[in-house]
């Protein structure tokens, strides 16, 4: 059991931790307020990655952003996976633990991809049961994140924002709001992202993700492999004005850039958060 206590994450910008930047971060800790890691990358029992995570945790508040629990699957929760997550949480005391509002496995086969759910009453029951189960075992609330989708299910009868708000109401979980995902869906399906934001309970939104996308023809792909686009920055300014300042993560997963570019993006997010502080003061 860790002696660490979860450190509050300020309403400032952090960056996603990737092994590509490990040594640079350890040698020259960047001026960011916090870091976020995928817990699955640290499920091993030992080795360099865990040692580096310990050093980073000693310096920065940390959050865990899981990708493997498959909250929307009709399969039972993988208890071995959840057990490893629990062990890691005990050791590193992250401030937030989040997962995706999606599914990725059926009949024991995993796709390791964040697949979209139909927003129905049936899905709501399954997701809420899973969130309840995870929160009970971890003995802490979790955050759920909206995902990118490349299809719309005919059966979806509940608007996405209302679906998320209902999961929050039934389970007491919080929301990790990914504005890039929201923007990509809005462009691909001609939707108004503000309608989703309007439906979310303000106090439930505890963290924001920003990232970049790629474009193939008229379709946007959520690759997390580019700088944050101007349209997403604009949506971010709107969201900060709407919800108030929130801890904000610059997420970059593919085509990884030099650490300095991630830090630049974090500085840009901090400027928007800071401007809001000044305005409200």
């Amino acid at each position, binding site marked *: 059991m860790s002696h660490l206590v979860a450190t509050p994450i300020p309403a400032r910008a952090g960056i996603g931790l990737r092994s590509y930047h490990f040594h640079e971060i350890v040698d020259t800790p960047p001026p960011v307020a916090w870091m976020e890691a995928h817990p*699955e*990358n640290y*499920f*091993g*029992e*030992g*080795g*360099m*990655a865990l*040692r580096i995570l310990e050093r980073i945790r000693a310096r920065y508040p940390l959050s865990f952003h899981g*990708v*493997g*629990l*498959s909250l*929307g*699957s*009709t399969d039972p929760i*993988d208890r071995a*996976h959840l057990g*490893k997550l629990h062990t890691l949480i005990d050791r590193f005391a992250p401030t937030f633990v989040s997962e995706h509002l999606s*599914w*990725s*496995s*059926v*009949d*024991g*086969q*995993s*796709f*390791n*991809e964040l*697949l979209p*759910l*139909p927003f*129905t009453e*049936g*899905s709501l029951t*399954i997701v809420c049961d899973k969130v309840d189960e995870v929160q009970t075992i971890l003995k802490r609330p979790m955050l759920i994140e909206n995902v990118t989708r*490349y*299809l*719309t*299910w*005919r*059966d979806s009868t509940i608007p996405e924002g209302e679906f998320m708000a209902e999961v929050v109401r039934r389970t007491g979980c919080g929301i990790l709001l990914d504005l890039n995902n929201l923007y990509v869906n809005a462009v*691909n*399906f001609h939707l108004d992202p503000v309608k989703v934001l309007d439906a979310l309970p303000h106090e439930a939104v505890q963290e924001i993700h920003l990232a970049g996308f790629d474009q193939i023809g*008229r*379709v946007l792909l959520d690759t997390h492999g580019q700088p944050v686009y101007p349209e997403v920055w604009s949506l971010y300014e709107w969201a900060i004005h709407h919800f108030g300042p929130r801890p904000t993560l610059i997420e970059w997963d593919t085509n990884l850039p030099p650490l300095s570019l991630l830090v630049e993006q974090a500085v840009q997010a901090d400027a928007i958060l800071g401007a809001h502080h000044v305005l409200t003061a």
Partner: protein
Amino acid sequence: MSSLRELQHAFATAIAGGKSSLVATEIVPDRMARRSLALYRRLIRNNYVHTLKITYPVLHQFVGDSYFRTLARGYIRRYPSTSGDLFLYGRHFSLFLLSLKAPRILVELTRLEWACHEVYQAAETPLFTKEPWESLASSDPSCVSFRFSPAARFLRCSLPIHRLWQALQPDASSEEAVDLPLAAQDTGVLVVRSEGKIQVIGLRAHEYRVLEAMDDRKTVVEIEQIASECGPQRDCASFIASMLELGVLGGIEIGRRS
């Protein structure tokens, strides 16, 4: 469609290349619908190919990207993922290559890289204190055996595959030629994490046998006997000392008489 489970099952069938008409009727026919299943199929496949490239970087470099992708796609079809933890994906790759009757060098290289992959995240080797060593000197060698470190593996090979692995590391000199004899040899390779770094070391046949004996919890007397069978010149004590120094051994047990 009546249930979420049926929908997810139909989606899985379509992604695997099976009948997609069932799930296609469940998708709103907007401008994205036509390409959505193909897009998901590509995203999922690329994710697994990327994972295999990370797990088998030397094999990838050795055979080239195009052939590696062909192998990876075959593997993905044959061995679907069963876990949300991608660290476990790819563990049957050497078996898959074996089933293709791939060249021995590829199979052995794949086994070696999986061992590296496991060792990278294995539990830490317990730190030796002086006490066991002091007691070792005064103990009856027929009562002393060793425990292997969780962060060490040894494999039997028929080719000096460690040399290929070493030559294809990012920090290796590109000028160095690798001479791999084609004739099968009885040899081995040791993978150990030492001070956080993966080391791959070639083993001669008698060294492999000594490690095998240690792993079987043979006593020092039995290990020396095995080493002497390999030839009188074998210095068993210095080999054991070098294994201790590398962190291959994770503990000493005193008590069992051979």
